[in-house]
């Protein structure tokens, strides 16, 4: 069975994408966070603008740890990836 990851969206992203969570099967060409983002960007302009590789005001977490968004991080089965706008708590 192909490895699967959970992808989560929060706040404005969740609203604009109309999605809070999905499970994605990792194809052989989607082994990193960046290739996942490239794949998501193919879904349309809103996706490309918010979470695509060119998006700037995006934070990415892998397994609930913030990622350096320029990093090339490998994805594994059961990983949880999250995309969200800059945080505004406190």
């Amino acid at each position, binding site marked *: 069975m192909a490895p699967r990851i959970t992808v*989560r969206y*929060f*706040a*404005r992203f*969740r609203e604009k994408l109309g999605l809070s969570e999905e499970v994605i099967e990792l194809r052989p060409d989607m082994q990193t966070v960046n290739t996942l983002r490239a794949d998501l960007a193919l879904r349309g302009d809103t996706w490309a603008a918010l979470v695509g590789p060119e998006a*700037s*005001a*995006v*934070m990415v*977490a892998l397994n*609930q*740890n*913030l*990622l*350096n*968004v320029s990093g090339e991080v490998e994805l594994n089965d059961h990983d949880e990836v*999250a995309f*969200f*706008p*800059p*945080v*505004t*708590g*406190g």
Partner: protein
Amino acid sequence: MTQEPWRVEIADKTLSPYCPAVEAWQALAGVGATVTFTGQVRRASALGDVDAIDLEHYPGMSERVLRQLLRDAESRWHIVAGEIVHRIGYVPAGETIVRVSVASAHRREAFDAAAYVMDALKTSAPFWKREWLNGQAHWVDAPNAHLPKPRA
């Protein structure tokens, strides 16, 4: 002393500005200073009178980041106890959003550690505010376009 020295909480109801642990921390042998910070919903915003804010968070990650903030503070200053409580959900104007308390031997470490926790929380803890103004909710923008450097 059975009081936990490190504690985080995500709270979905009214949050007192007073950290109940502070009184217990004062009894610890090395404690000479405590600092408690509260951040609350300001009534006045640039856009007018704020009725409330609505706070979304990333369950699991929010607790994890708050715990990490206490560990980071502990590794950088000689603090001996700390607590962070952050509200989520609907928070009326004037009520506490976040409360950070730390205890240390000396005052400067307590001030610096609490200020550090708040700065880092503002850029790395997964909470998002929506402001209610004139019956309409809108997402609050982060104070600047620069993304924070995530911790290594």
